[in-house]
Structure formats: C-alpha cells, structure tokens
C-alpha cells in the first residue's frame, strides 16, 4: 500500500527543524568540498527519516546521484557494502562473476552520464557497524572516483558510539583511516521546547493538496469537527517531556524528534475517539509521553555520547549499554 502523501516512514511529513538544519548543514559541507560527514545523534532522533527525506529531495531535484544503504550487521565485507549501494538504485538481476567494487564505480560513471551531474552522494545508515575493511574499501573507492572526475560525498549516519571508532581502529594501527571519514561531525539535535508550538501547528495547517484536509482533519475528523486543534497540546507536551528529561538528568531542550511525534500522534488518535475535560486532557498527554518509552531509553542509554568519547577501544563494537 502506498503511504499517505502526508506521511513519511509512518510519521507525519512536516518540515522538522532539526531535519531542516541537517539538510542545510550537509549542503554546506558538500558545497565546501568536504568528502565525508559523520552525522550522529540519539536513537530515534530522526536520522533515518532525514536520510529518507534527503534521498527523496536529491532524487527529485537531480542535484546529485544518491546511493544509500543500511548496515544491518558488522559482519559483511566491502563487497557486500558495494553491492547494497549499487542495488539501491534499482536492478535485481546480477551475475555471479560481477565484481561489486568495480561495478559500483562503473555504475556511478553511467549514472553521471544519465543524470548529468558528477555529484555522487553515498548515504550509509547505522554506520557504526562499518568494519575496518569497509572503511579501507571506501577510501579506495573515493580515490578512484576522484580520478574519474566524480565528486563523491559520503554521509555516515549512526548512533553516538560511532564516535568511538577511531579508538577502536587504533588497535588495528590505522585510526587515521577513520579520521578521514570523521573529520567533519554533525550532531543531530532533538526538539527544543520553543519549537513544540511550530511543530504542532504543522498538524493543523499542512495539507496534501491546496483544498485537501489538514493532517489533523484527515486523521482525526471528529476532533477537528469539535474545533479541536493540536496547538492546544503545546503546554501539556512541554510539561510532560520536561518532567521526563529532568528526572533523568537530561537536557529538556533535546528531545528526540520521534518521541515527540509519537506522543503527539497518539494523543491525536485518542482525542478523535473521546472528548476529555481539562484534567483528563492533561492526564491523556502525560500518559502518551510516558508511553513513548523515553524514560526507559534515558535509563537504558544514559549519556551515550559522553560515554562513547570516554570509552577506550572495546574488543567488539557495541551500542554502549552492554
């Protein structure tokens, strides 16, 4: 089933401030001639959504040829990575003798000819699972692409433990290899309290066509019919998330986007079915905030970023909460 035009990756398709900032930052990095940027952030801070939006946007604008993949485990070799990137632009019939390393570069050359741009964006999600061999292979691929007058730009999306990769590869004796890819780092921030109002406003104003229903109207017609608006949730959501963050000694102005969206969307569904009074309304929002699991996530992960920086080279890459 095709997704609703107002949704992306099962969430509302709104201009989310951290995603907009990420987009601007990446554009600046790319136009400044950077080869690689590492983008890290808390789990569910919207990295994968940002990646999906980036692919859509770049494909639509034709500004660059995009190859993307999600690293599913740390066991694959360089060929696996190249094959996944190659297949991300279509095709299902492959040949046993195909050499993915060469084939990927040739595909990039062919795509440059077809799309009329030499800008090649390689987006890798869950990049904390990249292995040493894959980094070496990527380095060689970049060199070869540069020789062919292509302008590659790699964005590594990953959890904060990606910051521990240089430490990890020091043990192998070549941390500089990873530094090559991690010289430019971008931290994907969460939502700030003063952005809640704007975000909730998008629910009430965004339409998939000029005369079509708004997101709130489409997904909660009863609530919309009663004159309800999502902006009414702002103080309750601020209170809810601030409480959770403060109790976990975390920054209340850095709430991962997915938690906020999940809470707002879940309240919207509840409000469509019931018409609560003021107190019940507050309780409903509080329950929705708690149900997102942000409290458990904070307890589980702690300050992942700080821990990743402090951590000495671990024997095996892990998520930091082991």
């Amino acid at each position, binding site marked *: 089933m095709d997704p609703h035009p107002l949704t992306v990756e099962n969430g509302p398709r709104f201009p989310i401030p951290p995603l907009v900032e990420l987009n601007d930052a990446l554009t600046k990095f790319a136009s400044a001639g950077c080869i690689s940027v590492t983008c890290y952030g808390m789990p569910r801070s919207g990295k994968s959504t940002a990646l999906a939006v980036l692919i859509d946007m770049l494909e639509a604008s034709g500004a660059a040829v995009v190859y993307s993949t999600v690293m599913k485990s740390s066991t694959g070799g360089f060929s696996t990575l190249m094959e996944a990137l190659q297949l991300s632009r279509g*095709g*299902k019939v492959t040949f046993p*003798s195909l050499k993915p390393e060469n084939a990927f570069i*040739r*595909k990039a050359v062919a795509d440059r*000819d077809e799309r009329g741009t030499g800008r090649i964006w390689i987006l890798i999600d869950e990049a904390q699972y990249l292995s040493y061999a894959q980094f070496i292979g990527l380095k060689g691929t970049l060199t070869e692409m540069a020789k062919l007058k292509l302008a590659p730009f790699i964005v590594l999306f990953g959890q904060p433990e990606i910051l521990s990769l240089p430490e990890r590869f020091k043990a192998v004796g070549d941390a500089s290899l990873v530094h090559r890819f991690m010289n430019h780092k971008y931290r994907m921030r969460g939502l700030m309290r003063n952005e809640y109002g704007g975000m909730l406003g998008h629910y009430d104003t965004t339409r998939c066509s000029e005369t079509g229903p708004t997101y709130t109207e489409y997904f909660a017609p009863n609530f919309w019919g009663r004159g309800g608006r999502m902006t009414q949730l702002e103080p309750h959501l601020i209170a809810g998330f601030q409480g959770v963050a403060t109790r976990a000694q975390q920054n209340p102005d850095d709430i991962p986007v997915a938690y906020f969206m999940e809470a707002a969307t879940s309240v919207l569904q509840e409000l469509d079915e019931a018409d609560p009074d003021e107190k019940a309304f507050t309780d409903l929002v509080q329950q929705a905030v708690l149900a997102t699991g942000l409290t458990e996530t904070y307890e589980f992960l702690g300050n992942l970023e700080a821990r990743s920086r402090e951590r000495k080279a671990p024997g095996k890459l892990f998520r930091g909460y082991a």
Partner: protein
Amino acid sequence: MSDIVNWNPRWYQAGESLWSVANKLAWAASASVADVLAILAGVVKRCREAWLFPSMEQARVLCGHLGLSVEVAKGQLFADICGMPKLQEREHWQIGIRFCPICLEGFVHRTHFQDRRVTHCLAHGVPLQEGCPACGAHLDPMCKQAWCCSYCSTVLSIPGNSWPSQFRQGPSQQVLQGPWTAPDQSPVWRCPPTRRRLGELAYEEHSAIWSVYLGTHAGCARRELDCINAFAMPVRFKCPVACAAVMTATMLGIAPQFVSGAWVDPRPRAALALGILESTLLWEVPSAELQTRVRDMTRLWVLEAIEAFVAAALLGKEVAHWHPSLSLAASKSHSRIYERLEQAATAADSFCGFKAPSASRNVKSLG
C-alpha cells in the same frame, strides 16, 4: 529503469545483437560475458547459439529485463527468423563472432553480421572480419571479458572514460566516403582457407545440424562420451542421435565438449584437427572448393552415422560400427541430404534409450 544491474536501455543501438548488449552489460557490471549470456539467454544450459535463436519465452523475459519491446528486439536483438530455421537457413548463421571494425569501435555488433551471406557492414561498407586480429582464433561469443578473444585475451575494443556516452551514441555512421570498393576481389568467406578456418567451418556446420535436428539430445550426448575413443571400432550406444553426433564431432576434430554447447577451448585440437577429413581434402580438393566440400562432408558424415546407428537399433542391437566415408564423390551424390537428415533424425528419436523424444524438435521457436 531496467531490472538488470548497471544496464541502461538507452545504450541499445538499432540492429544490435544480444552478444553486443551482453558485452556492454559485462563491461558496466564488471562481469564476464559468458556469465551474462548464460543468465540472460541460457546459452550454456541449452546450446551456444541461444543468443541468436532464443525461445519465445526467453526472448520475452530477456526483453523485459532489458527494457526493450519484443517487437523491436525481433530481427534486431535476435536473428530475423520466424520459428526454428531449417538447416538450409540455419547453416548460414555463424556462431563465431564476425564484426565490422568501425562498428566495434563504437561498441556495436549487429545481429546480421552473423549471417554469412552478409559480407560487408551495411553502415560502413567495410568487409566483415572474422577471428581474432592477434591470434586468428575463432571469436567465441562466451568470452570472459567484454570485447575480448577468449583464447589469447586480446581486447578488440577498449572503452574510454566516457564509455556511457559512447554506448549511447553508437558507432559513427559517416565513415563511408563514396562507393566502397573491395580491396580483395574474393569475398571474405572465399579467401583461401587455412587449416584452422576449415576446422571452424566444420564446427559451424556440425553445430547447425546439431541445433536443428539433434538439439533435444544434448543431455544424451553427455552420457555417450565413451564413444570418443572408439575410432574404427564397434561402440555401445543408448541414444543413436547423441552417439552419432559425438562420433562425427570426434572425427571432425571438434572437441567433444563442443557438442553439448560448451565451447571451452576454441582451438581445433592440434592432434586431431579435422582428423581424417583434413588429410583427404587438403590433398585432393582444389582450394576454391574446400569450404563447400567441408560442409558437404560434415553433413554426409552425420547422416551416415545416424543411419548406421538407427539400422543397428532397428535390429535390436546396442552395438554398432560406423566409419566415415572418405569418398569425395559420395558427398556430391546426396542431393536430397537435407530431407534424408530430417528423416534419419526423426527415426532415431524413437530409439533414444535415455528419454522420450519431445513432440517437436523445434523447441526454440521464436514465434
């Protein structure tokens, strides 16, 4: 977008053959041409000329993968023949690659180049070439690298950095200045044949007979390889067709693996090149007639072998003796050889001990 990794339908040029497409694909995907042809056209699994005469089902699947319509591909991507051709037609089509050097510079090989009645490139007017320019070997379509001789690995055409646009633009069409005059009065195919060329000719003729009359017994041939060493001796057989094919191939100096479709080594075997046929022909036949005579003798040998094995099978025997006729007059006396070949092959079908023959031998109908 095409289903095939690294293929762009805009690279297809009018009249381009599947071998040419396979080379472009192999280059773009950094794979071997043999691999591409095997997967797209099932060349190894069936027979080697499947890239010229695919089955209708294969043609549909292939065109779907390549993003081309079957109507466009028919007569361009594949040979322009409706249904399985008769031997009289099939034997004009060559499996070994023939090419126009100018077209090849533009990375194009056209299907009609494989028709031996075509001696010059229709676009550029230059004579078609056969064989590797470096070693002279027959150019095997199942080469490892793109545009490469599978024997000496000489690369016939090397794509530059702007290969995608070269693929898209195709070869130059403005090379011919005025009417072309042949530098050599004799057409390519009538050049004084070398020993190797005669071997290749015998292979082509044997392949044509094999694909038209004997194709359904490819599986049997793999099980009748014991008769390879039975020179001038009675042999035990289960499938008269396969046994005849393998024995005639051996007598012609064709490596037995050729019979089942695998062209492992394109060289005629040094010790058995053309076998006894060569020694007879080279001494007694004028060079102008050699090529015709090789084909006549090949047909005759296949016919005689099938008839010998069928005669034995009719008597309920599983052992038969066949020795090739060395009389040159005999090859001329068979004016109805095509009809007799078909009759013999049809009769032999019913004696196959390995499998029930299919209803029709024309399994590769192109519609």
